[in-house]
């Protein structure tokens, strides 16, 4: 599923829009984006935790949709208030994603965060398999679904927020790559995670190469990933009846 389901990308977009609106330096904009992504998911979790008596995953997703929409509305407000000659284009392009301004320092600051987020996913990969059985089954097999879910979501959110801070919002990668990887190596998380990561990495490199060679100027990455990803996802939906 898209990592933005709980609003991390939209929250990061809001942080970045705020940073751009306040004419902050690039590092501060990245920091705001990172913080915005984390804060949004934390808020979603807090709201979902306050609701009792319903299917926890459903409540989480609904809270994510609502708060993501709220963050989107705040972004729109900032777009209206922003200076139309240089802030508004900056916000728009940030929300479309680009690797054009990447510095070596960005890699040095982002890679450790991604690795930290990856660590629980790798160490607990068997429990991830158990989680797909549903909360009651997973609990009966000795896991604590609530705590595991929190940990996995926190790890995934950390990874997403840290890369979105340097690249802007890039959609259709987290949504499509895992499904294709699942078709190739099956749903066992032990294989699915590395396969999806390899696939995503290669895909992103290809898309970025296209972005800087396809037209005279830089094409934002989300445009390409959407044009490539949406048809693939439709195809997956159409012939996915054989089972994920």
């Amino acid at each position, binding site marked *: 599923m898209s990592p933005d389901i709980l609003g991390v990308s939209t929250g990061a977009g809001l942080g970045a829009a705020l940073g751009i609106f306040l004419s902050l330096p690039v590092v501060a904009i990245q920091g705001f984006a990172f913080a915005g992504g984390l804060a949004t998911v934390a808020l979603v979790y807090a709201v979902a935790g306050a609701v009792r008596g319903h299917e926890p995953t459903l409540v989480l997703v609904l809270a994510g949709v609502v708060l993501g929409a709220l963050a989107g509305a705040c972004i729109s407000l900032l777009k209206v208030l922003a200076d139309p000659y240089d802030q508004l284009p900056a916000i728009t392009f940030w929300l479309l994603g680009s690797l054009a301004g990447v510095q070596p320092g960005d890699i040095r600051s982002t890679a450790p965060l991604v690795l930290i*987020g990856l660590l629980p*996913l790798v160490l607990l990969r068997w429990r991830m398999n158990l989680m797909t059985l549903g909360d009651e089954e997973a609990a009966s097999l000795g896991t604590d679904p609530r705590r595991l879910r929190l940990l996995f979501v926190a790890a995934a959110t950390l990874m997403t927020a840290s890369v979105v801070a340097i690249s802007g919002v890039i959609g259709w990668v987290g949504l499509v790559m*895992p499904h294709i990887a699942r078709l190739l*190596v099956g749903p066992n998380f032990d294989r699915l995670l590395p396969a*999806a990561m*390899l696939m*995503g990495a290669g895909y992103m490199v290809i898309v*970025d190469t296209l972005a800087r060679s396809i037209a005279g100027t830089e094409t934002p990455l989300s445009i390409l990933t959407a044009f490539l990803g949406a048809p693939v996802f439709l195809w997956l939906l159409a012939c996915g009846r054989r089972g994920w």
Partner: protein
Amino acid sequence: MRIGARPAFVGLSLLVVAATALALLTGPFPLGAGEIAAAVGRAVTGQPAADDTIDTVLFSVRLPRVAAALLVGAALSAAGTVY
């Protein structure tokens, strides 16, 4: 459509390597494979840069960008498998 794990991983790894190589060769500034290899060799062995432009384009523009693409793609896909 499921293929064995080992061929899948080998294939995907080759894909990543090929995509990275292609990305390093692509761009408005013409960089050949030989020039890239020479520049990397010089950097690894600690010799001074023979051509500043090549080193700048390779190490300050293309390599960070390709590394960022790998990182972003891997991280977003990993996060996607969790959800």
